[in-house]
Structure formats: C-alpha cells, structure tokens
C-alpha cells in the first residue's frame, strides 16, 4: 500500500474523529451509548473500507488532477498549475465555447427531462399498480427499454427519425403535407428529442421504485377513505401522494443526478454537436479523446460543486418531506 493511500486513510480517520468528538461535545443530555455506537460502527465498517479505497480515493485523485496539467500519455509528468484550468474555463464560458454550450444543454435537459420522466414513471406505476389480468406483462413491457441495448434502440429511433423522406416519421409527415423535418440534425429539435427518448428509455427504472413505494402504502388507508366516501381522486391526493412523498424525494434527487450525467444518448444520436453536447460528454471528450485529464477533471470538479449545491437546495426545500 502506497503513501498516498495510507495518508488518505489517516486524513479520513482524522476527519471522522473530529466529527465524532464534535458530536459528543454537542450531544448534551442526549448522550451516546458506547455499545450502541460501537454496533453502528461495526455495521458501517465493511462499507467504509470499500468506500475509502474504491470511491473516495479515485475521487480525491481526480479532484487533485483538476489543479494539474495531467496529460494521459504522460502520467509521470504531472505539474500543479493552480487555477489555470479554471480560468480557462471561465474564459470559455464568456467566449461561449464548448463548456458554455455543454453547461447550457445540460441544464436545459435537466429542467425538462426530470419532471417529464418522473411524471411518466408515476403514470406508468399507477397504471400497473392495480392488480389486473395481464398486469405482469405490462410491467415487463414498460420496463423493457431500461434493459434494452442502447445500440438497438438508437438504431431504430435513428431510422424512424431520419432527416429525409426515407424516414418513417418524415414519410408520414410528407404524406400529410408537412415539410421534411431535420430531427436529430436540427439544432432546435435535437435536444428536445433526446429529452423525449431519455424519458422513454429511463422511466421504467423510476416506475419500479414508485411501485415499491406504492406497495408500502397500507391498503387499510384506502379502505378507510372509501368508507368515508372519498372518491378516487380524493384518495389519490390524500393518501397516495403523501404516501409517496419520501420515495419521490429520493427519485427526484437520483433522476436529477442521473440527468446531470447524460452522455451516451447525444453521443449515439447526434455525435458531438454544439446543440447537444452535455457536460459529461465534454468531460469524456476532453479527458479520453484529447487525453487532457487535468482539464477534464477541472470540469468534473465544477460540475460536482454545481450539481451538489443544486441537490442540497432541493433537499433543503423539500426537507419537511424527509
């Protein structure tokens, strides 16, 4: 084990110790019981070991790279360059360069895809939640895009949405007297289509989490409401919605984070275009295609700060739900 790993473990233990002491000092009359605390630590132990080694360690390295000129081909020739990467990112931002477009597209995608996908997922979950004949089939059907290879779905969508009259949809449009649409090649349509397709492909995932949430709402509550003469809509508002609140917060945050990482869809459906490039795609391009790991890590660091603070705001705003 090298010095970096040992140092990291030492720092981690130190921070943990400080937090522990702080909590103990602050605890006042609500004292910690030692045997109870110890049990808690032991339950955490395996996860903590793995997290420090395989999650925190690479992240710390990557954050550090953000302040260096790490070029992938020269791993033994890394220099600390201070805030250079960040100042060139601000320049990029004001000059409306790649980072500007990536940031704009990602925020646009998150703003529209997250609510859409959650709404679709909730709709699907409510549709299949009620035990019906053949319900299992529909559950599998709505979930199937999640497990389908992106290569297959993209091939089919690209074929259906070809930007000339050979395309299935354009063929129909032309027959109806509507001019041929550019779809993925049209700067105004491409991102919206990616939003629709991502929601279509991903909603099944949130659907099953919603389903798990719906199962946790006691049937008795509905029966009681029915006895009180509440209609479907009323029970939905008064029982289902509040019952789903905790899981919705979770789904919101995870969908939000997943949306901030959009990469594969624009990569396959449009390739690198100013009107569809996203932050993750940009990071990939700078880090792996151009091999500028330092610069890519700086972008990742900024994205982390940005998405992290947005997530915290969401948590704060929706706190009463948790």
């Amino acid at each position, binding site marked *: 084990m090298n010095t970096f790993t040992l140092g990291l473990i030492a720092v981690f233990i130190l921070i943990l110790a400080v937090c522990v002491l702080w909590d103990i000092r602050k605890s006042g009359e609500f004292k910690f019981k030692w045997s109870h605390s110890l049990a808690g630590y032991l339950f955490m132990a395996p996860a903590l070991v*793995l997290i420090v080694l395989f999650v925190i360690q690479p992240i710390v390295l990557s954050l550090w790279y953000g302040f260096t000129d790490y070029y992938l081909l020269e791993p033994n020739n890394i220099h600390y360059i201070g805030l250079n990467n960040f100042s060139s990112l601000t320049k990029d931002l004001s000059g409306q360069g790649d980072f500007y477009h990536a940031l704009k597209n990602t925020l646009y995608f998150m703003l529209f895809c997250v609510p859409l996908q959650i709404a679709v997922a909730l709709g699907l979950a409510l549709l299949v939640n009620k035990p019906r004949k053949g319900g299992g089939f529909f559950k599998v059907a709505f979930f199937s895009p999640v497990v389908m*290879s992106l290569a297959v779905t993209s091939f089919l969508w690209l074929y259906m949405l070809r930007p000339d009259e050979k395309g299935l949809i354009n063929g129909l449009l032309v027959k109806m007297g509507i001019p041929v649409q550019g779809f993925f090649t049209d700067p105004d349509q491409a991102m919206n289509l990616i939003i629709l397709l991502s929601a279509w492909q991903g909603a099944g995932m949130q659907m099953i989490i919603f389903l798990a949430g719906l199962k946790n709402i006691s049937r008795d509550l509905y029966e009681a409401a029915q006895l009180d003469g509440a209609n479907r809509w009323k029970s939905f508002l008064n029982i289902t919605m509040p019952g789903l609140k905790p899981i919705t917060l979770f789904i919101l945050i995870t969908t939000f984070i997943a949306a901030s990482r959009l990469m594969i869809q624009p990569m396959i459906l449009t390739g690198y275009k100013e009107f569809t490039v996203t932050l993750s795609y940009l990071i*990939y391009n700078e880090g792996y295609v151009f091999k500028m790991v330092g610069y890519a890590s700086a972008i990742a660091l900024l994205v982390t700060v940005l998405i992290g603070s947005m997530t915290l705001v969401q948590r704060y705003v929706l706190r009463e739900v948790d």
Partner: protein
Amino acid sequence: MKGMTVNNKGFRLLFIYLFMSVLAVLFLFPTVWMLAASTKPDVLIYSETGKLSSFIPNITDGSVFLRNYAILLTDYKIWRFMLNSSFYSAFIVVGNIIVSSMAGYALAKFHFPGKTFLLGLIVFLIVVPIETTIIPLYTIVHRLGLTGTIFAVLIPPLVSVFNIFLFRQSFVSVPRELEEAAIMDGASKLQVYYHIILATSKPIIATIATLNFIGVWNDYIWPIMVLPAPSGNGDWPLYPIQAALNTLAQQPMIETGQIMAALTLATIPLIVVYALAQKYIVEGFSTAGIK
C-alpha cells in the same frame, strides 16, 4: 342504474387496456424488433427495414429460424461468457446488498457520533460525476495487484453509495416498536437487522437488487480494462457477456442477425430477473404485512 355502472366499468376497463396496449407497443417495439431480427439472415433484415414485417419473426423458413443462435452457441461458445456474467453478477449483487444494507441500517437506526458526517459524505459521493474517476480507479486497483484477475471485477463494485442511501431512506420508516419488541425478546442487533429490518424490507431489497443487477450485467468498459482478453489457447475466458458482445460486434464476418441474437441472449436474463423480482416485491409485501 346498476347495469349502467357495470357497463361504465366495462368501458373504463376496455379503455385502460387499450391505452396500456398502445403504450406497451411504444415501449416494446425495439425488443420485438431485436427478437425478430435475431431469427433472420441479413439479406432479409435489410430488405425489410421500415416495413411492418421487420417486427415479425422469420417463421416461414424453419431452417434458418434458430441458425443465428446455433452459430453463437457453437462457434463463439457464447454460453461461457453468459456463465461468467451470471457468476460475477450474483457475487456482486449479493455482496453489495449485504454491505450496503448493513451500512444503511447503521445510518438509519443507530445513534452514534460522526453519523451526520458519514451520511453527508454518502450524499456528497452520490453527486460526484464518475467519468473522470475510472482512470485513477484503475491505477488503484492495479496497485493492489488485482488487475488481470477476476477480483478487479468482483471487489470494487461491492459497495455502492447510491444503494446505501436508498437502504437508509427505506429503513428509517421501519417502525421502532418492531425493533424494540424484538430486543425485549432478547434479540441481538444482528438478529434485529436480519429478522426485522431485512425481513420487512423485501420489496426494497428486490428493487435494489434488480437495479444493481442491471448495472453490473451491462458494464463492459471496466471488465475490458482490467481483465485479460480471451487468449484462444483453450482456456476458459474471463470476459463477461457484454465485454464479449463488444468484441463480437467488431467481427467482420458477423451478421446483424447474429448480433441481435447475442443481444437477445444478453437481455433475457435481465428481463427474467426483473420479472421474478416484480413477483417477489408483491409477495414480499404481503408476507411482511406491516405499515
């Protein structure tokens, strides 16, 4: 009056089924196309592109119906990669569920100093984008001497901050009375964890296991990076199915139909696991019978 409600109900039901069927078509068409294409020779696939018949399996010509699958299983011995994937996924999912649920339990039900920090840390780690961490992760795993062995594939994914958080959120709502009752009966913390927490959380376990399984099964970039490529000297290969698929698609002699057959084989386990888990989520709830 009564007849009308029945009628109304019937219409409602009909409408709902019609609506769901339209949706099902929208969601299922790539899967159906993949299944259909996997039974066809390439000439047929390309001549049918854009036609309705491209979604119908090639039932007229029985001699070629399963030919693509036969080639995959005999020439490419694809079942070996499927077995690898099954082993990796089973190991990782079981291990991950144990490790993550224990941590989730600690964060949900224990009052210990430093907990706020650890919980905050977990949430922070969920947010960090992972694109740039794969290279440092490789360096670390290499330094541990794991690259080139299956441990490089098996050990790092044993933990998932995402799953820890999900478990924690779910365990928080397990009623304290249940735990206390068990402790009164002389149960240890570990017994509470196993008999109360896990037993009452089967739906969430099934859900997380499914999501985790999909993620592990579909990953190919990491396995290709850390595992030796199939060497062809007759040794059992180490690649999982998705890594092998990535290789397969590059073969110049491979037909689209064969790739679709391979994709079908790689997708079936995902659908099966999901369908089984769905069933379990319902059963799990009815047996748990709480909340």
